[in-house]
């Protein structure tokens, strides 16, 4: 496979095109992934989530800088939302990272959600694999940041960073709604603003209430404050601390044999997705193509039957093992 070889050697053009073909759902690209998947397992994948405007992209840019200083190669996948009205998207995360554009050790690729819920794009999982096989030591994944349901990121990352900013009353609501569980590291960003100590206390209190089982092998998510991004000296120091904490977290996973559980989580999710894609999607498109799906909907509207009976009928038709 010529293209797999190219990707292994770090060829950006080939890699980015494959990511694109995956985004566009091309069968040929899916077939390529069969050759990519076995080669994965090198990268440390770091997820960054937090509400829009929290400063995620600015942090990613700073982290890239600090990993580059340690001579690590970096891939960035930055996800922004697709407009549900037009299907178009403005992918603006890159603006904050352009100073790395010419560094061959950094590969930044923007993705649009294209209707995927959960804060990521459907192709993100495969895009991570591709950057992994390109040999990137670090892969940073920035989520959309719409808040509450944004938990998909844990399925893809070894380390999840939750970025919070002071002065937004609903931040803590978001934490309650599930972000707490996914954080390996909290970052209080824009700590130059009023309210950062209060926010810190609130997160502390929340962590104090969590059962010990919430902290795998004793990893209680540290709460880091990040200095103003516009004060280069303090900001750089904050980022050094952050990248060190990220490294510590990875070492913790390795030392306590927890890396496996993260990889397990990702593998289970990927299998789930792949089955859906290979089993459910073709059935649905076959039913849609011959008009049966529409006829069934009509039947339901008249209450001639119910969705459960119909689904069972379809299962009997398509699955050998259906009851």
């Amino acid at each position: 496979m010529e293209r797999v070889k190219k990707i292994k050697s770090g060829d950006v053009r080939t890699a980015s095109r494959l990511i694109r073909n995956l985004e566009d759902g091309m069968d040929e690209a899916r077939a390529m992934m069969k050759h990519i998947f076995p080669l994965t397992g090198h990268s440390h994948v770091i997820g960054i989530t937090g509400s829009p405007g929290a400063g995620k992209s600015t942090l990613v840019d700073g982290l890239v800088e600090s990993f580059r200083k340690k001579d690590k190669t970096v891939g960035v996948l930055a996800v922004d939302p697709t407009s549900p009205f037009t299907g178009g998207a403005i992918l603006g995360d890159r603006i904050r990272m352009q100073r790395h554009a010419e560094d061959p050790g950094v590969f930044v690729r923007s993705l649009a959600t294209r209707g995927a819920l959960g804060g990521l794009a459907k192709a993100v999982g495969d895009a991570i694999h591709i950057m992994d096989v390109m040999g990137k030591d670090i892969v940073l994944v920035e989520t959309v940041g719409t808040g509450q349901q944004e938990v998909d990121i844990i399925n893809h990352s070894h380390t999840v960073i939750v970025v919070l900013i002071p002065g937004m009353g609903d931040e803590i609501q978001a934490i309650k709604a599930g972000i707490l569980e996914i954080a390996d590291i909290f970052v209080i960003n824009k700590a130059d603003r009023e309210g950062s100590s209060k926010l810190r206390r609130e997160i502390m209190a929340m962590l104090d209430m969590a059962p010990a089982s919430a902290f795998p092998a004793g990893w209680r998510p540290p709460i880091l404050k990040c200095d103003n991004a516009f004060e280069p000296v303090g900001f750089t120091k904050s980022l050094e601390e952050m990248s060190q904490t990220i490294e510590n977290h990875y070492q913790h996973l390795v030392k306590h044999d927890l890396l496996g559980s993260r990889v397990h989580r990702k593998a289970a999710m990927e299998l789930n997705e792949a089955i859906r894609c290979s089993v459910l999607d073709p059935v649905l498109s076959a039913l849609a193509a011959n008009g049966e799906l529409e006829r069934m909907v009509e039947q339901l509207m008249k209450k001639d039957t119910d969705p459960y009976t119909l689904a069972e009928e379809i299962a009997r038709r398509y699955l050998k093992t259906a009851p």
Partner: protein
Amino acid sequence: MGEKKIRVMVAKPGLDGHDRGARVLSRCFRDAGFEVIYTGCHQTPEQIASAAIQEDVDVVGLSCLSGAHRYLFPAVAKLLKEQGAGDITVVGGGIIPEQDFKLLYDAGLKAIFVPGATLDGIVDWFKTNIKPRD
């Protein structure tokens, strides 16, 4: 099989800070259903070419109102070719006197849009001339 989307990069090379047009265009391309990567002001041709390749865009749209297009636009087109990405279409817009058109077309630009070009007209041109790759 999903849908093949057009990916566009809107970039402002050089020191020109007139970004209103670039922002208006980014919005308008999004509304036309394209995926738009906007890289902001003050980009070198090298940054633009490299970003276009990393993002695998179909087209790079350069905007320049300062008068430096004669050097900057051809530089981007040349770098893309040198880096094996000559298939990425390059177009430009801004304050560009007609006598410079030939130089820019010769450098490989496929279209030039000046003040007064309607947004509908621009989108039409893109939809007709930019095909997402096969």
